[in-house]
């Protein structure tokens, strides 16, 4: 009998230990060759390219439309610019580097589908006669079908050989401002992005995914250093194997720096490093600070004041909101002097929002669009952000039927798509 039971247990353990490996494609060396000898694009060229494009070839794999938008990431005095494309299916998107040669534009990078885990290489050209010459003009005249982008893409590690062609259709929707707030600094590690969640690299990547703001999870180390880390424990979902048990609050900052690496090899960043990256190296407008249970709100507030002063000195529109997700954190917040004057975001009821004078009410999306309550917030000069909305059909409904001013999501590219194609 026991051998039979043992066999069953063994089979179970083998199956439990199975883990599917998925290839995540990053830029290859051929990409840099593709852009060799090209020159950086002028700001006017980049701005003129932004818009909604119809996909006339390759739509069966991606979608009928793609939203093109530029973003930049500063490094010292230099800024690298990226052309992002957001599709309407499977949270598909691409991130391309670009350059021009003569009057043609060249692009190279990767595409990714966050929902399916697929990724691959993508290269594209705007030939001189298909819009390249227009775009290089100091005053480009852009209209329907004036730009045709011809590309090739490959799935997984294959060379880009499948065709994709898209044509300019219309400008991006510029209606009511919507904050696209990227969860975990930009996206979840589970979505197989090339950088780890809650890392500096992820914050720098967030705009390439369509975000205008980020949410970060701030925890504390044993010696009181605020750091970015979401989970209660150091686990293999977020960090590389290290043999440590417990949470970040069980280790000093020094120990975490020397012993722990995030899934893609980054260090766990301090809160200050994260804010430096967001403030000085991106154009992100807002940071939603999710204060984890062990993290004192008073410490967060000190750093918030410091960085609001830095933002003002830099002439940046940069909002830092202390997120209040629980009664415990609300009580800590109330203990701060002049707490009603401190920029905050409350996830509890609208009565709590009023009592705290929070700038933003942030309900869970699973309560629905709640348009009457959102209207009350608007009437009081407050905003409403909903969290954490990822389901495409619901994103579309919340944008169509809801009145929210911001959507916190793991799929910024999907929210960006539905927002800009409106």
């Amino acid at each position: 009998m026991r051998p039979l039971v043992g066999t069953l247990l063994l089979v179970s353990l083998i199956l439990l230990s199975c883990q599917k490996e998925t290839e995540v494609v990053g830029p290859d060396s051929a990409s840099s060759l593709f852009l060799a000898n090209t020159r950086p694009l002028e700001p006017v060229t980049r701005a003129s390219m932004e818009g909604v494009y119809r996909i006339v070839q390759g739509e069966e794999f991606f979608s009928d439309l793609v939203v093109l938008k530029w973003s930049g990431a500063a490094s010292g005095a230099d800024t690298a610019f990226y052309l992002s494309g957001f599709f309407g299916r499977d949270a598909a998107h691409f991130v391309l580097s670009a350059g021009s040669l003569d009057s043609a534009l060249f692009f190279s990078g990767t595409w990714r589908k966050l929902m399916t885990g697929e990724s691959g290489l993508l290269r594209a050209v705007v030939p001189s006669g298909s819009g390249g010459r227009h775009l290089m003009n100091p005053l480009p005249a852009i209209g329907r079908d004036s730009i045709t982008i011809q590309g090739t893409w490959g799935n997984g590690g294959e060379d880009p050989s499948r065709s994709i062609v898209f044509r300019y259709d219309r400008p991006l929707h510029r209606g009511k401002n919507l904050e696209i707030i990227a969860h975990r600094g930009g996206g979840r590690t589970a979505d197989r992005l090339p950088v780890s969640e809650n890392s500096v690299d992820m914050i720098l990547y967030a705009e390439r995914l369509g975000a205008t703001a980020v949410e970060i999870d701030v925890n504390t180390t044993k010696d009181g250093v605020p750091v970015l880390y979401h989970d209660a424990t150091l686990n293999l979902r977020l960090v590389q194997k290290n043999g440590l048990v417990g949470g970040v609050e069980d280790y000093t900052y020094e120990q975490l720096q020397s012993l722990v690496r995030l899934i893609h090899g980054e260090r766990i960043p301090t809160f200050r490093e994260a804010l430096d990256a967001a403030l000085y190296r991106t154009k992100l407008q807002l940071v939603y600070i999710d204060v984890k249970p062990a993290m004192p709100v008073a410490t967060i507030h000190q750093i918030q004041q410091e960085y609001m002063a830095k933002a003002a000195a830099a002439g940046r529109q940069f909002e830092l909101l202390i997120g209040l997700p629980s009664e415990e954190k609300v009580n800590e917040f109330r203990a701060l002097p002049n707490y009603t004057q401190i920029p905050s975001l409350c996830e509890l009821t609208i009565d709590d929002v009023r009592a705290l004078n929070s700038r933003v009410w942030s309900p869970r999306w699973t309560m629905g669009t709640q348009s009457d309550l959102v209207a009350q917030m608007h009437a009081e000069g407050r905003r409403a952000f909903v969290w954490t909305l990822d389901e495409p059909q619901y994103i579309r409904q919340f944008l169509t039927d809801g009145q929210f001013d911001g959507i916190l999501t793991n799929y910024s590219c999907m929210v960006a798509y539905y927002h800009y194609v409106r």
Partner: protein
Amino acid sequence: MRLVCRELRWGRLACMVLFLLPSAAWTQEANFPSIFYPSPPAENQWQLSVGFIQVTPPKELTEDAWVPAPTLDLHALYGLSPHFALDGRALSQVVQNHISVGARWSHSLGNFAVGVGYDVAYWFGFLNLEGFDGRAHGWNNYPSLSIGYNTGDVRLIVKAEAILDLYHSSLVGDNEISTNDDKIVGGAYTFALEQPFWKDTQLTLGFRATYTKFSWLTWALFSTFDQYLFYPEIIVGLIL
């Protein structure tokens, strides 16, 4: 740390169930009643089983927040003929439930038996807790093939199933979405043994390995992963 300890506790409990309970079994007559073994009850006779299943959803969905909760499992067979049986099963966690009805054809070949089944299931769930105002329901179908081996004291079963998601719908506040793609979303392999246990009862111990893009048990997590994720499941049942 709390989560780790909880997982270890469940792991220890599972090991105890798997190792210790079978050792308390007695050898009885070979022809004992079964639920998973592809052999129908006698004509016009019922066969009932009560137990639980314990599913661990994938970390991709639950991340570090999941409260493990067993699911009550009531399973019944009704013999129609020497080869045909009706198969009914109800799984419940109170806030989410899954009821299936199906037919099973089976045939014995010496110590082996083979069965083919088709189950139609309706599931529904509702959550009206703090921060949630949602409900969902849907239809799944499960065609299956089972192979059993009877050692006399023990019956071993391997069952392969496909999971068809015919329709599911969810409502959040006043917002409703639905899908009716009518497609195969995954499959499952069940490895089970059945053996005499206590007096006239028999014990079922099983492990079900499910790879699926959608599981009714995690509807409230609103998964957006269009990927086959792994749901290990422990099955414990008492055949009455």
